[in-house]
């Protein structure tokens, strides 16, 4: 193991996402979500054995197509959803559509099926981003794929809960409708986090350090979850590279 921390960023983020899962709830992530998929399985094999997992595009899915998943979320039965955003802004909006001038984008993304619905329906959504820079955490996204905050008279069953990056965890405060720094991961400083965030984090003097992955979490991750992820096929090549063998 070359990383002096004893874990890498992928393992750290998987552990942090796993801690967001509550036992007995339905928790889900989309396709192309290897870190959340790992986090969901880790939660199931640590503190949330009765969690019901939906990991789209793998063997861990109860439905053949997206329609039933869509309606499950709309019925308010989805407790937790993990989503990624190319850009995330201070107000908890995320962008999975395009960068640049909205009429002449420089780069387009798949858009993310259903995100504009699930962000309003899952009780909590945790946004994850593997890059914590001023281009990924911005004052205002170039295109709002899903809005963090809506007026009180708009039908909404849930909303953003946290943003997790390799450097820090941000918490969404629903009152002001803004992201606040919750904790800074071991090895990173508050100044470094602010310098790499494209919006003002406000008073960060009392922000604590994130609890590092425990020996137990890393052990289960590497000896139980890694083999399960290899079995998915979808994520086998990623997990071989990202998660250390037990």
């Amino acid at each position, binding site marked *: 193991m070359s990383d002096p921390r004893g874990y890498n960023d992928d393992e750290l983020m998987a552990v942090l996402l796993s801690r967001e899962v509550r036992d007995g709830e339905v928790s889900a992530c989309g396709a192309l979500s290897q870190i959340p998929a790992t986090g969901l399985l880790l939660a199931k094999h640590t503190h949330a054995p009765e969690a019901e997992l939906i990991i789209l595009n793998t063997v861990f899915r109860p439905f*053949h*197509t997206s*329609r039933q998943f869509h309606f499950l979320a709309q019925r308010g039965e989805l407790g937790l959803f993990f989503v990624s955003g190319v850009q995330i802004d201070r107000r908890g909006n995320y962008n999975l*559509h395009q960068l640049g001038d909205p009429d002449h984008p420089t780069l387009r993304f798949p858009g993310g099926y259903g995100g*504009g*619905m699930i*962000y309003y329906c899952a009780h909590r959504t945790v946004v994850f981003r593997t890059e914590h820079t001023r281009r990924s955490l911005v004052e205002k996204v170039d*295109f709002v794929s899903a*809005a963090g905050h809506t*007026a009180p008279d708009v039908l909404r069953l849930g909303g953003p809960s946290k943003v997790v990056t390799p450097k820090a965890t941000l918490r969404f405060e629903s009152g002001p409708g803004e992201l606040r720094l919750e904790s800074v991961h071991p090895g990173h400083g508050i100044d470094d986090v602010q310098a790499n965030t494209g919006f003002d984090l406000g008073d960060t003097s009392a922000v604590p350090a994130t609890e590092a992955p425990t020996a137990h979490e890393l052990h289960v991750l590497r000896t139980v979850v890694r083999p399960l992820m290899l079995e998915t096929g979808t994520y086998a090549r990623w997990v071989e590279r990202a998660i250390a063998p037990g």
Partner: protein
Amino acid sequence: MGVPYVPVIGLVGTDLLARRDDMVVATDPFGSGVKSVVARAMRPDVAVFHARQADRSGNVSFGYHVEAVMLAEAAAQVVVTVEEIVDRVTEKTADGAFLPSILVDAVVHAPFGAHPGGLTGRYPVDREAMRAYAAAAQSDETFAAWLDECVFGVDDHDDYVERFVPASIRGAVQ
């Protein structure tokens, strides 16, 4: 479903909603005062699918799971291209999604009809052709040239397969 519009949770405050004229924010007609998006029904003139098998009556077995029935129900005309025509397809024998013939207007025998896309369980995506398509789609001029070569420039489907579906894809058929 046959209804003119349907309420949808979400999308309020997004640029997606701002750029569409078939969705609006409406207030609950039952008096709660709660607002949500209402989307106008889509009624396509034609829906086109590519599937694994069909019979001559128009019963279709997709060979993969897909939300086909709702789209077929919504469309006025349904055309299905298939890898092979077989004697009989029923809901029981179908693999993956099934379309009953009552929803299907035409079946076309078109092996490799998904190309340059792939057909799950049958042959993979032609990544090189997809890259060429994506590059051509960057401007109207290059896209017109792509259409001239790959769509208007072929005699028929067999000619397309012969010229554009590489041996590596044809050899991968399961």
